[in-house]
């Protein structure tokens, strides 16, 4: 039944729209669509954004194992390409700091009336276009060091359950430390 639901184009698009709507609603209610909240996170003055990300990982990681083990959904692991992830990640971070939004919160901010976010979105489309046009020339750099769709338990040769326990406990400890220090 799920397969038929997933395959029908109109239903797929409506599902995406509703999931996005709830995502935007939550981001706004959490303060993550506000420029000042995001920049103050990068300046280590307000930890709202990391609190949201870490609690999403804790809840989602546990639920994800249940969903996958029940055979309801398939993992979607992005390939491990160290060089482009490090270089691209740092460029992304620089853009995050200068613009004051990341791609999802940027879209949310547009919805709340941020004009500079709208300009940032135009810049993002231009940046994506530049990458697409440069891709044939930097193809080697992007694809050569592909180590495959690795997960932490595979690399460390530890059971998934144990990895999950350690990662989630670590995130909970970090969040507790943030709270204790009133950050």
């Amino acid at each position: 039944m799920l397969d038929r639901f997933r395959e029908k184009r109109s239903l797929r698009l409506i599902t995406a729209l509703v999931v996005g709507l709830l995502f935007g609603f939550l981001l706004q209610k959490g303060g993550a669509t506000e420029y000042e909240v995001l920049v103050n996170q990068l300046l280590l003055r307000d930890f709202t954004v990391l609190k949201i990300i870490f609690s999403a990982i804790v809840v989602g990681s546990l639920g994800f194992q249940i969903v996958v083990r029940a055979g309801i959904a398939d993992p979607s692991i992005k390939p491990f390409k160290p060089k482009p992830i490090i270089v691209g990640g740092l460029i992304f971070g620089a853009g995050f700091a200068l613009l004051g939004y990341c791609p999802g919160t940027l879209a949310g901010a547009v919805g709340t009336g941020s004009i500079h976010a709208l300009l940032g979105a135009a810049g993002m489309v231009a940046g994506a276009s530049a990458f697409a046009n440069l891709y044939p020339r930097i193809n080697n750099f992007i694809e050569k060091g592909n180590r495959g769709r690795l997960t932490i338990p595979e690399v460390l040769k530890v059971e998934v359950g144990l990895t999950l326990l350690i990662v989630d406990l670590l995130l909970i400890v970090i969040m507790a430390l943030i709270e204790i220090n009133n950050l």
Partner: protein
Amino acid sequence: MSWLVLTRWSPYGVGAGIGVLVLVSFILSNRPIGCSTAYVRASGLGEELFQGEKVQSNEYYKKFVPRIGWEVALLAGVVLGALISSGLSGSLAVETVPELWKAGFGSSFLVRAISAIGGGFLLGFGARMAGGCTSGHGISGTLQLAVSSWLALFCFFLGGFGVAYLIYIVVGGI
């Protein structure tokens, strides 16, 4: 229903809600939540307006075919959801130059506009090179314990902390 008009919810509640939402996305659509792909679909559609079918011969657009699909609908939903949420709590307002920016760089809209477009450019380029953004890598990927996504999340914030310090503290003096 007064909680719907609250300006702020607990970040932990919001985070937990987003965690559940990623699961909903996996269950209903068999895919993770990720926001940056929509921008490359949009750039391809934009290029098609000017270059026509030539765009389809680009290697990258062969992988990310320019069309309005799941990712674009998701991103449109994000805009709409934040609009509804801010409308309900009364925080919907036009913002051209934010206060924090003004404190460091003055109230010129032009300066803020250029920095926003430049920042967006780096964000779009970097996200495509890294293969995802704060949602696709940072939440959906990390919760699947993907090595790529944990490294990406680390680099996003490492770059973000460093460059924010340079821009706002060293140059802006905030």
